[in-house]
């Protein structure tokens, strides 16, 4: 065997070994744990009032977050790509901020400005929306951390969208509105779906910011991740496992669905082939302002 092939094998083993140890083993551990008690136990654990309320709350909040994120994220992406205005580069850089800020710090920020001590907080409270230690806080925290996803997923596909496709539609008699519906939207749909689904999965798992903003009131503001934390601290691995696995399963399902939905039409290529051809999500400097 040539040294080249040996080298290749060595690298491959290293990569596979590392990934197995780091990612596969922990997964296996939790899978194993969930079967230890049996299916009935599993369902029982999820069915407790506290667990089920945590799950429902998490799914609800994540859903609302996803909808808002989809709407404003799309609008933001379109504005950032298509329009030129002062401060555009600033807004565009800001989008990456949630990636750089610790979630705990996010929680503190939101709790500070939307809490009962500020004008904004009081004004909202009068309007019936309390942020701190209440449900709206959960949504707000989730919104912050998932904000970049839709925008960053849409930007590259919007930029790739050739003007020519729209112009051709015009020459074939389509009005600007029809063109938007029948040409633009279908072209960017994969990007949009990716952003939306990733938002949902991320929101499901958020912990640090929610723990600060919404606190830990069982049945009221306790999301799944906080519930799991509680169970761990109380030395109740069963409870922790069941809810964890449930959340994991939903996440995998959602991502699997995304994979199916965003395949190029008529193709059976797995996602990572396309993902590896995807351009880095960014605005080229020449396009800024």
């Amino acid at each position: 065997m040539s040294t080249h092939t040996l080298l290749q094998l060595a690298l491959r083993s290293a990569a596979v070994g590392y990934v197995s140890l780091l990612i596969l083993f922990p997964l296996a551990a939790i899978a194993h744990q969930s079967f230890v008690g049996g299916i009935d136990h599993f369902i029982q654990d999820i069915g407790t009032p506290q667990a089920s309320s945590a799950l429902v709350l998490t799914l609800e909040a994540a859903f609302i977050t996803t909808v808002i994120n989809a709407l404003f994220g799309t609008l933001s992406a379109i504005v950032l790509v298509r329009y030129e205005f002062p401060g555009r580069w600033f807004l565009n850089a800001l989008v990456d901020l949630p990636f750089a800020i610790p979630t705990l710090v996010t929680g503190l920020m939101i709790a500070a400005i939307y809490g009962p001590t500020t004008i904004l907080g009081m004004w909202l409270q009068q309007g019936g929306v309390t942020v701190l230690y209440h449900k709206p806080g959960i949504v707000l925290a989730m919104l912050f951390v998932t904000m970049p996803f839709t925008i960053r997923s849409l930007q590259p596909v919007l930029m790739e969208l050739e003007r020519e496709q729209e112009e051709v539609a015009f020459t074939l008699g389509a009005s600007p509105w029809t063109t938007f519906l029948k040409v633009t939207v279908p072209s960017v749909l994969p990007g949009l779906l990716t952003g939306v689904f990733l938002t949902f999965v991320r929101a499901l798992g958020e912990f640090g910011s929610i723990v600060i903003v919404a606190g830990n009131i069982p049945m009221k503001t306790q999301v799944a991740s906080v519930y799991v934390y509680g169970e761990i601290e109380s030395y109740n691995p069963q409870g922790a496992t069941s809810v964890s696995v449930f959340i994991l399963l939903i996440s995998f399902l959602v991502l699997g669905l995304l994979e199916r939905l965003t395949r190029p039409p008529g193709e059976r290529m797995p996602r990572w082939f396309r993902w590896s051809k995807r351009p880095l999500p960014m605005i080229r400097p020449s396009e800024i302002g």
Partner: protein
Amino acid sequence: MKIKVRGLTKQFGSVQAVSGVSFQVKEGELLGLLGPSGSGKTTVLRLIAGLETPSGGDIYIDGKRVNDLSVQDRNIGFVFQHYALFKHLTVFENIAFGLKIKKWKPAEIEQRVAELLRLMSLDAVEHRYPHQLSGGQRQRVAIARSLAPRPSVLLLDEPFGAVDAKVRQELREWLIRLHDRLNVTSLFVTHDQEEAMEVSGRIIVFSKGKLEQIGSPAEVYEEPATEFVARFIGAMNILEGQVLNGVVKIGSLEFPAPNIPDHVQVQVGFRPYYVKVSEDPRRYRQPATLRHIYFLGVAYRLEIETGEGLILRSRMNKEEFRQYRLEVGQPVSFAVTHFRFLPQEGMAFPSSAPPQLLDAGPLTL
């Protein structure tokens, strides 16, 4: 006249892309818009399509002034260089797009699309998506799509720019046959002069936003109206000299110039085909040395150097070449059998060649 363009101008910011272009296109013509990048040819095409609005001038299609008519209402077909196929639709759906917009009945759509699929030899790929097609197939789909709603005019922007040389050749021939069959008035833009010559019934040559010449391929080739056209179309030997005593002498070459006043600086152009070369030093009047031989497949190109250091290009067909045994470095004789004086803008240019001595002696074959 199918299309009439009068005094068309277009400015992009401070750039004058098109200045004062006027021409007419007959019904059923296949017209080539030829020129280098930045010459304005694509802009003119897009102006006719309605994808740009003119800064000045008028455009008439079928006798009607269309300046204020939107793209959607002009009933034109447009084909882009990079196809611009709808990636999320199948071949069938792409072609049917325009028909759906115009609210054709499903049965009619079926029929029309089937007709075009057959015409374009695309039957087999009806249900495929653009990314599953070859470059040639994609282009044919793009053309079929634009033809489906029966446009009165077909506009093509560098339609064969994005495919391989071989495929390009096939597509060219195919386009000619298609045009013969359908007889839709077509304008296409290209920077490839061979393509323009081969495909077009008439050619318009553009340069820097202006119309340089309009004519048949033969006219444009044999009788270039300006220096630009002469240089752009085909290879050309171009020499500069001054008229003295009704003659332009360049080196030992003399070009009679009976109609040009003395002391005018002129450019003399002659095609390589009109430079006759022989290995017999007495056959022709002018002596030279053979510097390079290039084999072009269909003919040979010879580069010869005159006594004064002028490099001229000559073209010789294979039969003739084989009669001689020409070698690089060999002394030859040559003559120029046809030439033209090229009109220039403004006065003489500074010549980069060594100063030409005037000599005497008429040209003979």
